[in-house]
């Protein structure tokens, strides 16, 4: 395997894993639910996205032919993350209001 490609793949994996960890640190550390929502929706999505990209690059250079199907996971993650964050935020707001009413 080409050493330059190997360096890029390794870097993408390391940076991606670091961002994923960062998202979880945010999830564990931040004080209230709406703040906690920030970590996983962005840092984790970006981190895992970088790792998926690394996998695509790795298999495109080691196996014959391009390996594009990882891109499908990437696209799906980036479409689904804001939607689940939005739905969760709505649910949290709903529960908070109901608690305040009681």
């Amino acid at each position, binding site marked *: 395997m080409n050493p330059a490609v190997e360096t890029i793949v390794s870097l993408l994996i390391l940076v991606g894993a670091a*961002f994923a960890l*960062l998202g979880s*640190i*945010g999830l564990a*550390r*931040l*004080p*209230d639910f*709406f*703040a906690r*929502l*920030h*970590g996983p*929706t*962005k*840092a984790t*999505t*970006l981190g895992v996205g970088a790792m998926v990209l690394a996998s695509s690059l790795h298999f495109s250079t080691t196996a014959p*032919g*391009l*390996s*594009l*199907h990882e*891109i*499908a996971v990437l*696209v799906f993650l*980036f*479409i689904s*993350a*804001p*939607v689940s*964050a*939005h739905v969760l*935020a*709505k649910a949290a*707001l709903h529960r908070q209001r109901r608690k305040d009413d009681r």
Partner: protein
Amino acid sequence: MKRLLPHPALSAAIFLLWAALSNAASVGALAVGALLAVLLPAVTRRFWPDTPRLQRPGVALRLAARVALDIVVANAAVARRVLGPLSRLQPAFVEVPLDLRDPFAATILASIVSLTPGTVSIDVDQTRWVLSLHALDAPDPQALAAAIKARYEAPLKEVFAC
């Protein structure tokens, strides 16, 4: 043509997705993709709301590039805030009055806001046309709202001409 492909953009997306999933390995796989690209929009036609036409593909591409760059660059800023002292954070709920009047464009704007770090969209009020969002650290909510309007809403408005 219009009856065969009611949503050309959707058909193109399905075809590209299928090509990616099957690694574009063979002519057969591409043929199946083309078949799905014609069949799926036709079958699910009734579920799709009237989506506005893409008026300016060039602006759309530039917006996509800008959003991708923002996601990467601004994630570093959020990283600093998550790891730094929490007492200095100023979380805030911000309401952004929208100029858009289209549910589809508003949904895209909400998704962009959620993906760019520091903000998560919470609700799109389609009677008052207000986007409410939560910002992790917003010392100046008014400036944030203005920045979102200028940076993302104005190009979107141009793209869909609504």
